[in-house]
């Protein structure tokens, strides 16, 4: 990282940018994943206690995801009606998102809403310390004033991100569902324009039904051979078969579990035709809202693609600071923490390399979505533009989202400047899209952004 900095210095950089670079260089932190759930014990506050959990050990039940989805159509209809009546929509989706590790198709979604009231903002740091996350609380036992009595791994370096990247506050409220459902809601709710079927090949799916799956206990057709084998096994274990040469089947015990059935199952037989690259800047400057924004947008796109293409979209995930690396699953992509410097070109280069090495361009529709705060140490675009030009040689669409920091000023980020300067936005609007939003954008703005990127 430092070498790259030196290199840049030789090329000459503005003091403004240098300041940004220095800040990122000095930012201590690493890209580790947050510690697993449960390690973070929330300090209980007064009103967190109730008789059910304290006395009866009866935890507050969580609504199964079906109860929330059951009425989703009704809810969405109600929400549409609100707009007709002149009130803002109230249903939000995809707020509590936490993809499970290794199971890339899983995201946690729930249609949620908020009952707005005029309230004191307790997260606001005041002298007395509020009930908020950074505030003070009580304790008992040993310890001098000023003594550290315990510690807790930091879950999220940016405290702002409640419910944001890698956080998902309110662990008790989540339900699991597949991203597929989120996609369905998105498509219905926001009426996203469908991606055009590009290229000669359509994403194609074939299902065959076959009696291939075996199931113990119940099913359509009894697999006699397998069942006999199991019965024998059980009875041998039970010692019911004293002499192997003289088996007396009338003495055998048959457990229901020994019955092996064949069940009719749907076999998916398809070729994936679309490949989506998600690129995320996880440099130090992405701290806080910017990351939250980019990540939630990518979750939405990801879920929506899953829906639109019925799990036939392959996704690849690339994170970058000054170096880019591919990560295996959405979980890692989603949860990795910010740190380090920024070199957008590195991610683009990595994608180009992957595409070339695996000759993906021939067989796939390729989409690239990149999310950043717009900071780039490569101030004049010397590196990024050539990579981008190479990319649009094969990609069906490159969508860049910039979540501008409030302090950076509008339209002043390096990435935006460079993209505009390159003329690619005007020259190849069907291939390159740019969406710039403030880092405090709300969810509807994020959806707008997706429309812009993929329309």
């Amino acid at each position, binding site marked *: 990282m430092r070498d790259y900095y030196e290199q840049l210095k030789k090329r000459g950089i503005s003091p403004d940018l240098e300041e940004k670079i220095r800040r990122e260089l000095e930012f201590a932190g690493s890209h580790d994943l947050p510690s697993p759930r449960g390690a973070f014990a929330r300090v209980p506050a007064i009103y967190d*206690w109730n008789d059910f959990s304290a006395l009866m050990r009866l935890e507050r039940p969580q609504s199964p995801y079906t109860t929330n989805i059951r*009425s989703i159509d009704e809810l969405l209809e109600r929400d549409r009606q609100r707009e007709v009546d002149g009130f803002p929509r109230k249903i939000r989706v995809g707020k509590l998102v936490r993809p499970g590790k290794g199971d890339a198709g899983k995201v946690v979604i729930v249609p949620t809403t908020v009952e*707005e009231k005029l309230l004191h903002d307790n997260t606001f740091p005041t002298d*007395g310390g509020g009930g908020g996350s950074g505030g003070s609380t009580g304790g008992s036992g040993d310890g001098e004033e000023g003594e550290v009595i315990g510690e807790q791994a930091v879950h999220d370096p940016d405290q702002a991100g409640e419910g944001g990247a890698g956080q998902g*506050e309110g662990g008790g409220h989540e339900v699991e569902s597949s991203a597929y459902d989120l996609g369905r809601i998105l498509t219905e709710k926001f009426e996203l324009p469908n991606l055009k079927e590009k290229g000669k090949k359509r994403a194609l799916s074939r299902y065959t039904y076959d009696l291939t799956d075996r199931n113990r206990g119940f099913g359509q057709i009894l697999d006699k051979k397998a069942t006999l084998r199991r019965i024998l096994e059980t009875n041998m274990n039970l010692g019911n078969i004293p002499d192997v040469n003289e088996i007396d089947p009338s003495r055998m015990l048959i457990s229901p579990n020994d019955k092996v059935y064949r069940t009719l199952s749907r076999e998916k037989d398809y070729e994936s035709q679309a490949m989506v690259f998600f690129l995320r800047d996880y440099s130090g400057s992405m701290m806080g809202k910017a990351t939250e924004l980019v990540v939630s947008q990518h979750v939405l796109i990801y879920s929506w693609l899953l829906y639109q293409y019925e799990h036939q979209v392959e996704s690849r995930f690339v994170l970058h600071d000054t170096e880019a690396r591919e990560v295996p699953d959405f979980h890692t992509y989603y949860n990795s923490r910010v740190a380090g410097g920024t070199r957008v070109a590195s991610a683009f280069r990595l994608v180009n390399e992957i595409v070339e090495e695996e000759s993906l361009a021939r067989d796939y529709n390729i989409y690239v979505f990149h999310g950043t705060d717009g900071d780039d140490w490569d101030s004049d675009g010397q590196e990024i533009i050539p990579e981008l030009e190479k990319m649009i040689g094969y990609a069906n669409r490159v969508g860049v989202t910039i979540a501008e920091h409030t302090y950076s000023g509008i339209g002043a980020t390096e990435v935006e400047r460079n993209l505009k300067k390159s003329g690619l936005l005007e020259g190849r609007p069907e291939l390159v899209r740019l969406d710039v939003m403030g880092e405090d954008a709300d969810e509807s703005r994020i959806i707008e952004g997706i429309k812009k990127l993929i329309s």
Partner: protein
Amino acid sequence: MPARTESACPQPRAPKGEPRAPTGGRPYRPFMELVSQHTKNIMEGCKERARRAGLRFEDETLEYLVTNRDLLELTPKNMIPTLYDYWVHDVEVLKEKGRYELYPGNPYETVINTRPAISYYNDNNPDWMNVMIFYHVLGHIDFFQNNLFFRHTWDFDLTGQALADKRLIASLRSRHGRWVDYVIEFSRGIDNLVGYFDELARIYAPGSGDRPTRLDYYFDVFLQSERKVRITDYVKEVNRYNDCVRRHKELGEQTFFADTQAKYPEFEALYLKSLESKPARRRDLLQFLMEESDFLNREENAWMKPVLQIVRKTSIYFQPQIRSKIMNEGWASYWHEKLFMQDERICGHEVEYARVHSGVASLPRVGLNPYALGMRMFQNIEEMADKGRYSNTYQRLHDAESRHRFDLRTGKGFETIFRVREDFSDYLFLSTFLDQEFVDRHRLFVTERRLNQERMVWEYVVTSRKAEDYRKMLLNQLYHPPRIEIDREKSAGNLLYLVHRFEGKPLVQEYIPNTLLGIEFLWGGPVRLETSEAVRAAGSEMGQEGEIEWRRVVYEMKERKLSKTPLF
């Protein structure tokens, strides 16, 4: 078991497994069931023992078994099974911005303050555990039915009332459809601003004594509001009055007003007029809207007012609950501890009990536990009063040793805690009884979380062991909705001008637009809200905290568009 009418009982009892008629598209579901006769007998035994120990509560109680499914439906309704239906109850509601500030009803409680009091139980609790829980529940019921902050909930049964309200709302919904839900939504948006204390004050108001005397009227109203005299003149008047009293003794006041009559001939008439006019009643926003909103008072909108009324009433009902969490849980824990160990029916389960009880009533190393804190405070108060330490003599003792030995053996402890449970709320309780001795005795401290950047861990640091700081930290965490008042003078024409009385914390900004939108709808004209917002001085980016400066700003919601202007 006593017979009950249908309205008093949330759902009539039915044999297990019998499906309920589908209502509002919900799936079939069995009824909630009452606990078995065996368990009910245990409860009745607990009641007898609790009464003998001094608790006071009504004879009848209802105990239901609940399943997870029941709880899911009950929690959004504050555990009141008959509460009106509202679509938000079926959706996951985000609360991270202020879960308890938003839902003061404390929606996940075992026992609710109804008549008869209803409590909910897990199906498979062992008997000994039910004994403990029953004592705990009886502690709560005693608290609900004796603490004066609950006075306004004593005269009716909420479940019955709620059932009537629910039917009313259902019938309105059949006529006005989704607009009923909008009205519910907008009223709920301001239901935390209800004048709970005004309501209590109305109940406890002394008879006619609240009319100002002639003297009070002269100095407090007439001189200040009518004549608007300067301070020097005001002081002169005070001196004149003092002179009169000194010179003429009993006749002083009379002489004073005789002179006044000459000075301000209009005074007497104004005073008499003031007596005729009704004393100004403080109204909260919901009341104000119901009475003054042109929109709500239009004939075609008259149906909305009962909805506002229902929302307001429900909110007021739950207000004391969250304001007495520490006391209520402390009181219940105090009693279940005391009574459980005396109960001969549970012999042999002491160890199991001890395990559960210590989980409930131990002071956490870090964090706050209302059970543990409240229970210890009650025990401490009892001991202090027993030894006669709430006395001037004790307070003036400075020698640690003699303080330690101080014991008048007054035996007033029991009486004292009963008085405390009657007259106090959390705020008063903590500010009155949480003293340094208590903090030292239980080795309490204030701790703060700070970030260790190098190791990326949160460190918990003991910041103070002073009672003052501990109290401050606690009071800071207590439920406290913002005070929003209606400024009649600035509300000109059809404009409604609201003023947020700033108390060091800003309002949650992202909630302002929709709340104001709701108020505008109910008011039928533009609404302004004056509040304070933080402006951080330079150098505040990247998470560093700069100095906070406060600035008054005015939000205006006009024709569903929000604008914001700084006041100065």
